[in-house]
């Protein structure tokens, strides 16, 4: 009798509350979720429903008020600051709506950034960063700084950066929020390709129903910090 495989991501009774003045606001309330390895999961919901909070918790940028998060067998919710930094470095790559590239650094240097914190030699990291930029189709733009790149190009640089240390989990927070529909499709297609070709687990926050339906294996809907629906393959 074989035991069922543990989910790649598992949250149990996850809550996150913030103090706004004297008022305690629950951004996430009792969220339990399980994501199998190699899945492309979309999280949707209205603005303020807790999508980004959930993603920040999964990415180790934030810590829960209550509940647990387990990713790839590691209890992320119990990690100290140092362990969380290591998890962000190697365990989960993040992509943001506003790209979050460092404007003063070239595309190549931005992709190198996670490798710098991983202590990779300059020569090695330059080679790896150039290779990643090539994979996202930006080898010709490696020496350009973010302000010299289009929105789509910047997001591709951000994807390359998220992949730098070879994480098994890719988290994307509204990656198409600042892009036109054609570029949005390209970016989500790129994430889907990484999911399909490399077996990366992708969790993407988005409110673009059409894109989500086209690419995601599962859709999790949040409302007022709670999971209201989980849908299977679209």
């Amino acid at each position, binding site marked *: 009798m074989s035991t069922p495989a543990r989910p790649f991501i598992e949250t149990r009774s996850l809550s996150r509350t913030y103090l706004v003045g004297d008022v305690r606001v629950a951004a996430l309330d009792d969220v339990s979720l399980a994501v199998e390895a190699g899945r492309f999961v979309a999280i949707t919901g209205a603005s303020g429903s807790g999508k980004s909070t959930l993603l920040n918790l999964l990415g180790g940028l934030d810590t829960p008020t209550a509940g647990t998060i387990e990713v790839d067998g590691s209890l992320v919710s119990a990690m100290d600051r140092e362990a969380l930094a290591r998890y962000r470095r190697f365990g989960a790559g993040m992509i943001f709506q506003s790209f979050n590239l460092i404007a*003063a650094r070239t595309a190549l240097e931005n992709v190198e950034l996670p490798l710098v914190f991983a202590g990779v030699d300059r020569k090695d990291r330059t080679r790896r960063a150039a290779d990643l930029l090539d994979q996202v189709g930006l080898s010709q733009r490696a020496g350009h700084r973010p302000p010299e790149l289009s929105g789509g190009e910047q997001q591709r640089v951000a994807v390359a950066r998220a992949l730098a240390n070879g994480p098994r989990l890719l988290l994307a927070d509204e990656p198409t929020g600042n892009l036109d529909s054609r570029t949005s499709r390209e970016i989500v297609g790129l994430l889907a390709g990484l999911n399909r070709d490399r077996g990366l687990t992708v969790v993407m926050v988005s409110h673009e129903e059409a894109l989500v339906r086209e690419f995601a294996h599962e859709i999790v809907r949040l409302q007022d910090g709670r999971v209201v629906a989980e849908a299977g393959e679209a």
Partner: protein
Amino acid sequence: MKFGDAAGFALASLGKRRLRTFLTASGVTIGIGAFVCMISFGKGMQKNVTAAFQASDLFNTVIVMPGGPKGPPSGDPDRQGRPRRAETGPSDAVLDDEAVAAISRLPGVTMAYPDISFPARVRFGGEEEFRLVQVMPAAVTSSRALKIKWGRAFASDAEAGVIVSRSFLRRMGQRDPAAAVGQTLTITSVTLELGRLLSGGLSGVLSGQGLPLSAEAYDFPVLGVTDISPFGDGPNPLESDVLLAPGPAAGIKRLPISSVWDLFRMQSGRLGYSAVTVRVGSIGGLESVGSRVREMGFTTFALADQFAEVTRAFYLMDMVLAAVGMIAIVVAALGIVNTMVMSILERYREIGVMKAVGASDGDIKRIFFFESGAIGLLGGVAGCVLGWATSLVINRVVNFYAARQAGVPYVDYFAYPIWLFLGAVGFAVLVSLVAGLYPARRAARVDPVVALRHD
């Protein structure tokens, strides 16, 4: 994160904000510049005074004075503190020729000569002034104790001639010391004329007609000229402007006293020399000679002891100068704190991005530490250059005026030991790192979620 990468990040950040980096580092530069300038001045003074001491053989010298607390050794009895570190003997021993001879015979003593000086009118090149003429053995004038730059020392104790100081010649209007050698100097001494005292009677003296004194002039060639020492000669007993050998000095008719105190001593039959200078073979012999002399009932005063006090005084001076320099450095440190905190606010989002891609608290701290350390290093090195350049300018200006006003030869008033520069740069970096402690800690505690939302 590797050391080199943290340094690279820090330098890139500083390079991006060049003006602010320059202004912040300028604060450190000025602070360290002031610090280096002041300490190098203190060290320069110490070096020069020490060199003056060492060059003059004075470490091997003991000054012997009449013994006991019953009377002042010489000069004004109200000046209680002088000589300060004198070892006082208890007796009524008289410091006469017999005592000088006895001291000369003590083991370890190479030379002992009395301090004889008398007031006289000295004329040279048409100018005249009252000076104290000092009697000096030939052996002393040819020793390192006296720096004869032009002409020569006395060939023997009997040689008729004088050695004068350059400052004396300047007062006499002679600017060229070399030209003075060979010229004639006239010493006019004053003596009691017993004949007049007898013929005029004591009533004449008491009625205010004046003492029966007569003056007699003696001509001597100038044999040598001593140079001006910019730091004096420490407590050098050879401080007179006009020196005469013992032989010709004996031939000059003069009053046997130099102060009213000598009259008291004369009355009690204890009139001797006011002081005797004793040279010992080595510095190690100072204590044994000193104690033997004290056993003879005299008071001794070793210049080496005073040098220790001078060293302590310089140490204190260094501390005061360093404290003044420190004020500027503390102000500079506050500038660094301000700049670094500003930098955190400006790079708030960047810090968030770095954390999001895996930077640890330690990595962020390291980057900010490197930034503040680099400001300190930059300011420290520039401060050393500034301090050095400033001291050079001050040195030039002071030397220019000293040479013009008093004919003082060129002197380096500042000293630059290598430890001063290394220490100053190290100190600048240390202060900067301490100044960077709070900003680095603050940067490390930035919440990435908040920072990534920051515009």
